[in-house]
């Protein structure tokens, strides 16, 4: 079986395929340089810390949370390996009663597992809080682990620490400079796997949650699942780094794992730049080296270091990697052109609606749906039926309950009373993500694009549900995972072409014009393969020509058999493309019917314009 390109995916140029060979270069260092301080002390530390900073990057860079407790995971890995492998002979007066002397790799695996469990436990508070609050929780978390290793002498020998013997393989010592040969393969393998995960649908799910949790949920991505997974993965890698660290100095003691270390990792990460392995490496290198370079400043060394950090972060807010990325962006133009060309060729045979699943029954049936907030009834006993394959307009003056209805339909709010049925299934108690998976997609009035991602990646997030690869296949970037990714890319490109955005495929969403952003929202929603598409004010802020384009797109969506619920203020649009229109006022349905009938309905006119005095006079007589 070939692991080469599939379905027209372009092969990277030869030079690009040979670059991994450069990864062998660092292995020459211990062979060429004998200096223990630089090879073992500095290079070894850089390798281990890079692993840790890359793990922190999963939480900070991808998920967007701040952790100041990663020294805790680091400590779990380090102490598990230390206590389980240390020889009693070297720990004569230790408070630890029994040293099991397990093999290094077994202890390391257990350290990773224990740390992953700790990450799982921390993942849950991360679901409830974020920003500074979560940062404080992570500090507390790190502190608990630090206090444990500092004071539980029977387990950890307290402040006196644990001494390990250097590793041996056969007759060869793997201590000293040779330890690089142990650490480095782990580093390369893990970073490679993290990079694969980062650029796969997993990484996109992480970034989608960071950019807009509500939009992520509306494409079927479970925030809880991916957020907790990110913490577990991150903690596992941090535990691995800790386990490797324990053998670096052949000695572990609590002071290493204090809160300072967590802060320093965070500084190295931000300094180097997030979501970039090269950035992680550069950040760590500078962070390990710099204090040494400033020895000339003697006592004011750390102060100079701090000032330098401030200045650099002020001028390079995205870290060193940010600078590299913008330089690389200019150089990478040719590679992108090849990919674009291949995508365009492959996408030309794709029918974007081909995979639409056949559904039975009415697209949406609301029966007596009521939503109360305290004393306020925002939606009052609303019943309506939207037949499959039709376009329904939902209008009403400000505050009439349209937005609340949308939020109830998508599961953002749980209705106080009433039933919601879609294609014969009761969806009223499903979560937002479950409804999206069921086939309810939406766009957002106040654009909820994933701003850091490209247009193509935004649509790929919409296709999230179509991915079948598991995490191992993704991490190892197996041919199956690659085929699946390429197939999704082709489909995403075809969807962009459907809304007329294919030339913006590699543009970041934040760089799109307002009209293009609206179209991208529609493409992303269609990627979910919806049975019912909810368009929330798609015309807001658009020019007449752009509105015409959207009208044409909605007609084609309808022709493909997708039911559309259109919430819109722009009456010309509503009247032009709706089969029927429902009018809300004060949370109640006041009219329903063909566009013409609704426009002439006195109740509708009154809701929008108020009572006309002649009508008031007539009423009084």
């Amino acid at each position, binding site marked *: 079986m070939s692991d080469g390109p599939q379905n027209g995916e372009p092969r990277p140029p030869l030079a690009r395929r040979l670059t991994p060979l450069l990864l062998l270069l660092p292995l020459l260092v211990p062979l060429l340089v004998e200096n223990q301080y630089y090879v073992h002390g500095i290079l070894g530390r850089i390798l281990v810390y890079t692993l840790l900073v890359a793990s922190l990057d999963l939480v900070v860079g991808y998920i967007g949370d701040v952790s100041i407790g990663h020294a805790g995971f680091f400590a779990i890995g380090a102490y598990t390996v230390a206590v389980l492998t240390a020889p009693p002979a070297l720990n004569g007066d230790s408070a630890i009663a029994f040293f099991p002397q397990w093999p290094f790799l077994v202890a390391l695996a257990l350290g990773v597992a224990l740390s992953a469990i700790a990450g799982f436990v921390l993942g849950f508070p991360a679901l409830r809080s974020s920003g500074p609050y979560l940062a404080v929780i992570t500090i507390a978390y790190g502190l608990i682990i630090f206090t444990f290793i500092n004071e539980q002498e029977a387990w950890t020998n307290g402040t006196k620490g644990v001494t390990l013997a250097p590793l041996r393989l056969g007759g060869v010592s793997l201590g000293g400079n040779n330890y690089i040969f142990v650490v480095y393969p782990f580093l390369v393998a893990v970073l490679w796997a993290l990079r694969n995960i980062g650029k796969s649908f997993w990484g996109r799910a992480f970034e989608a949650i960071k950019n807009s949790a509500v939009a992520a949920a509306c494409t079927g991505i479970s925030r809880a699942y991916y957020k907790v997974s990110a913490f577990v993965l991150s903690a596992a890698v941090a535990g691995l780094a800790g386990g490797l660290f324990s053998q670096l100095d052949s000695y572990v003691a609590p002071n290493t794992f204090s809160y300072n270390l967590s802060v320093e990792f965070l500084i190295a990460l931000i300094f180097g730049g997030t979501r970039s392995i090269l950035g992680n490496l550069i950040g760590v290198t500078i962070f390990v080296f710099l204090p040494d370079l400033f020895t000339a400043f003697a006592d004011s060394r750390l102060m100079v270091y701090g000032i330098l950090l401030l200045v650099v972060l002020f001028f390079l807010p995205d870290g060193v990697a940010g600078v590299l990325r913008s330089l690389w962006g200019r150089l990478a133009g040719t590679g992108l052109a090849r990919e674009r060309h291949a995508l365009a060729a492959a996408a030309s045979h794709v029918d974007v609606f081909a995979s639409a699943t056949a559904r039975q029954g009415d697209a949406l049936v609301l029966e007596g749906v009521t939503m109360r907030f305290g004393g306020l009834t925002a939606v009052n006993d609303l019943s309506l039926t939207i037949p499959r394959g039709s376009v329904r307009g939902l209008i009403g003056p400000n505050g009439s309950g349209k937005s609340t209805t949308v939020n109830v339909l998508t599961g953002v709010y749980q209705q106080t009373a009433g039933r919601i049925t879609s294609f014969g299934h009761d969806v009223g108690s499903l979560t937002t993500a479950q409804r999206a998976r069921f086939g309810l997609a939406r766009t957002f009035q106040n654009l909820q694009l994933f701003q850091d991602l490209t247009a193509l990646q935004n649509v790929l997030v919409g296709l999230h549900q179509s991915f079948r690869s598991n995490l191992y296949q993704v991490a190892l970037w197996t041919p199956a995972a690659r085929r699946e990714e390429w197939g999704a890319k082709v489909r995403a490109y075809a969807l962009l072409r459907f809304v007329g955005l294919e030339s913006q495929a590699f543009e970041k969403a934040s760089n799109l014009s*307002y009209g293009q952003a609206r179209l991208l929202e529609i493409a992303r929603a269609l990627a979910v393969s919806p049975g019912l598409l909810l368009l929330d004010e798609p015309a*807001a802020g658009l020019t007449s020509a752009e509105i015409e384009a959207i009208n044409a797109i909605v007609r084609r969506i309808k022709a493909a058999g997708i039911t559309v619920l259109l919430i819109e203020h722009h009456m*010309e649009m509503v*009247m032009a493309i709706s089969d029927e229109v429902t009018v809300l006022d004060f949370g109640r349905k006041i009219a329903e019917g063909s566009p013409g009938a609704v426009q002439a309905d006195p109740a509708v006119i009154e809701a*929008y314009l108020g009572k006309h005095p002649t009508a008031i006079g007539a009423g009084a007589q």
Partner: protein
Amino acid sequence: MALLEIENLVVDYGRIRALKGVSMQVEQGELVAVIGSNGAGKTTTVRTVSGLLRPTSGDVRFDGRSLLPLPPNRIADLGLVQVPEGRKVFATQSVESNLQLGAYLRLRKGERRGVEEDIASLYQTFPRLSERRSQLAGTLSGGEQQMLAIARALVAKPRLLLLDEPSMGLAPVIIDEVFRLVERLKRSREVTIFLVEQLAYRALEVADRAYVMEQGQVRFSGTGRELMKDENVRRAYLGAGAA
């Protein structure tokens, strides 16, 4: 010279053009209404006048003086006082404190005596507020909060009162009450009123003149009486097909 002159105002929200060249005039002592459906640009206009939004181009002049270089607090100091959409009372403060805060600029100039007299006379105009003067503003009903928001603006002794959607979220009976008050303020002719309102017929009933906005532009204008009979008003809200 008109008291307020809005000239060719263009306002963008990031990538969205909300006002596409809007011109309006308000004479001393007039009540001018701006009507139009959701998203027409009414609130954007009033927020630009009060300095909360910066226009991309165009000008806003008060008494012949451009307001554009001034921050909102200086504009308020000139006598343009806004009653914001959705009332925005200081919910965790008492009714009395809300009124005192409305007079902040006057109190800073040492007009304590005058402010106290004005608050006392406002309590006569708004007996409900007087009954609830020590109650937290957040616990008032929607209609009472709207009255408080208007009273808070009046304590500042405005020369031009900017009323943004006073009917928003209120029940019809309460809306009647609010508009009776607006009518009374207009009759007193002490304050010029710039009224932004979605409920067209309510606004036209009290307005001397009105501008009808649609999609960031003034479509047409006229006296309240003329527009009341004009079918185009209905079309501006419900589309060209509307009867």
